[in-house]
């Protein structure tokens, strides 16, 4: 498959860029913001890059998971709840454990939440109840269980585990190698999975037109469950990243609710249409980082952090309108 892409060469590349111009645009926006931020503050270096990349991890993971589910024609409002659940379980069971045990807990959480969310996908597809309703309900349930597991902020994890996500065993300072690796590896794995494998194509297919997908002989239910499983696994990763970042668990409902909304914002900003079937996972990755970067940029500009949400809303609305305009102009000229 890769050799086929290579042989087609430049034509494929230029067409790929044109087709995914939104994704390219979001990455350009991210680069511009980074450069701008670098000029805004007196010293820009390893510390800032590390800080932005590690703080982006939870949202980026959630955005990737949300992206896959949205591409498959669904939406998952329970991702924040799953994040809380993973976070609470991790903080409780990783506390004072050796690194090997911590890793085992992490892997179990990823696999377990993937299975759990696949089950949610199964329920959605057999019941015919809309995704948004089912996941709204399951989101409350997961958040409630998280509180039950960890009634108040607390718990902990192994220093090596904190290093894995932050590059420093204390979670402070460190180098940007680990956070960037931890961001790019899952992103590229899911991206490759979604674009090059049959299950990835099937996910795009059911989001694009699920009647046509069924008539073409696809197992629509299996593809839907796969998208929810990927979403669950990434929500688990997001919860693990949160434990690694803060060193403790935090089961507050508002944390999960915010995370869910931000994941949807990142997906939209990343050029993934909520109707499904289009867009690239990589767009949501860049959009997730952009949303996290807004805070330091605004504080560097001396703007009250309380106004950050207004700016975030304006940014999303503005980008969507510019994107719409570009599409319109391109259609006109065609």
């Amino acid at each position, binding site marked *: 498959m890769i050799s086929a892409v290579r042989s087609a060469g430049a034509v494929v590349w230029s067409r790929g860029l044109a087709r995914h111009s939104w994704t390219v645009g979001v990455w350009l926006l991210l680069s511009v913001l980074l450069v701008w931020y670098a000029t805004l503050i007196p010293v820009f270096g390893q510390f800032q890059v590390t800080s932005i990349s590690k703080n982006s991890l939870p949202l980026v993971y959630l955005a990737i998971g949300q992206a896959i589910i949205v591409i498959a024609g669904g939406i998952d409002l329970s991702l924040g709840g799953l994040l809380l659940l993973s976070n609470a379980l991790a903080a409780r069971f990783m506390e004072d454990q050796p690194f090997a045990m911590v890793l085992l807990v992490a892997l179990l959480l990823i696999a377990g939440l993937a299975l759990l969310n696949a089950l949610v996908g199964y329920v959605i597809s057999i019941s015919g109840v809309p995704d948004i309703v089912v996941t709204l309900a399951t989101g409350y349930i997961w958040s409630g269980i998280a509180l039950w597991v960890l009634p108040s902020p607390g718990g902990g994890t192994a220093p090596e585990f904190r290093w894995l996500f932050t590059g420093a065993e204390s979670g402070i300072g460190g180098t940007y190698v680990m956070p960037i690796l931890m961001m790019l590896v899952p992103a590229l794995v899911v991206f490759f999975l979604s674009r090059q494998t049959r299950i990835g194509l099937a996910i795009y297919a059911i989001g694009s037109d699920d009647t*046509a997908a069924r008539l073409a002989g696809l197992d629509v239910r299996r593809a839907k469950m796969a998208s929810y499983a990927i979403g669950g696994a990434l929500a688990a990763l997001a919860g693990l990243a949160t434990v690694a970042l803060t060193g403790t668990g935090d089961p507050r409902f508002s944390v999960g609710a915010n995370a869910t909304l931000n994941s949807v914002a990142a997906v939209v900003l990343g050029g993934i249409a909520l109707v499904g079937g289009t867009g690239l996972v990589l767009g949501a990755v860049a959009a997730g980082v952009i949303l996290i970067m807004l805070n330091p940029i605004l504080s560097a500009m001396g703007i009250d952090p309380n106004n950050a949400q207004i700016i975030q809303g304006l940014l999303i609305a503005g980008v969507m309108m510019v994107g719409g305009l570009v599409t319109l102009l391109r259609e006109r000229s065609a």
Partner: protein
Amino acid sequence: MTASRPLLETVNIAKSYGSVVALEAADFAVRRGEIHALLGANGAGKSTLVKILAGVHLADSGELFVDGTPMQFHAPVDAMAVGIGTVFQDPALIPDLTLKQNLQLSEIDEPAFVSWLGWFDLGQLDLDALVHELPLETLRVVDLARALARDPQVLLLDEITAALTADQAERVFALLAHWKELGRAGVLITHRLAEVLRICDRATILRDGRNVALFEPGKEADASNGSSTGTMQDVGEHELVEAMLGAEVREERFEESGSETSASEVRSIADEIAFAARGLSSGEVVRDISFEVRRGEILGLVALEGQGQERLFSLLSGDRRPTAGEIQVGGAQRGWGGPYDAVSDGVVLIPGDRLLSLLPNLPVRQNLVVPLFNRIREWLRIPQDERKRVLNAIDRLSIDTRAASQVRRLSGGNQQKIAIGRWLVAGFRTLLCFDPTRGIDVQTKREIYALLRELAGNGAAILLYTSELAEIQLVCDRVLVMHDGRIVDEQEAARATESTLLTAAHGLEAAV
């Protein structure tokens, strides 16, 4: 001849959707080496039977045999696995994926697929194109080539010719003949009876969910004069129509209303120009088109696939702005900002894809009254006569409202009637019809012809694009022929035959 087992057979198949009985008891058998037509009016159960044969739906009861073996298909892959290749009425291609990705998804051998495209002269098709970038006509062929690449024993073609040009339809027929020679079979579902008579060996007629007739011309001929070379040609269109419609054959009505409002009479109603295009252009797609439609006139438009007719209609209905030229309504130039303005001027469109214009999840009544909400001052008003107007339209169009709660569950013919009916409710002066009878059964077609003539008789101006050339003589007064974005010919409908129209449509000078 030994009575060998049929390649594909259903016995007493029944299927209901909720309270709507789609199939009551259908027996259907396809032999090796034949092309079998499956015919019936809208709602007779053809599409349901196809979906059961293709594994999309599971029958409620009854039996299904492939080569004599009882089968149960739980998913389309099950049917594909035993050699049933289906081309559905709606393309089964994923719009946001490329052709190549669509092939990968359904595990199709690419070289085989491409070589079948070659049969349809599309061997050079760019497999990296996104499906939604390709025209419907091409997608039908792609769908067919994909089914063929699986090398099926039986080909089920549901209304495949409806969206195809005449030359592509010919290639489909040649293909079916080839399939027959291979000792395989084809099932053709079509509303075009001329096709059935020409290429099919037998025909099963469904009515109200039951098989009511089986035409086997070879057998009859065998019995009567000892030859076995009978073809469907011996049956005749009339017999098929009668079997499809049952007791209520309503052929007379259309003929009558057709003659009542003959072209000359209509012209005497008014000579007023209702709608005109002057030098209308849109990039390279539509070039310098001028014509006028008078009140009471039905102006036909004929073109091969992809000559700019879609773009022309989107200009005329205000959906797209022309790059040059103008549209005149009642002699005055109009600059429309969108379909809203066109509708305000009484210019309304019946689009080619009827689901585009309908609200598929809403009931019939709401679909009919949508245009009434056009004016803001009517938002809060409850129109006193709304109910009457709606019932009137339902009655006048004889819309079957059994599945009235959701328009998407109605048959294609009934949906088309609603697309037209809403403008009867709202009122209009110029009607733009884009292939209104595509994929619609005989009876509904006749009703639509009669309705169009009646509307014209009442003073409406109608522009009718059609892919069925026979319709021109039946309903139109004049006909324009479009080729490569331009109007290349104008003919009196009464003298326009399929051959003169086709000649012009290919951009050729008529051989005088």
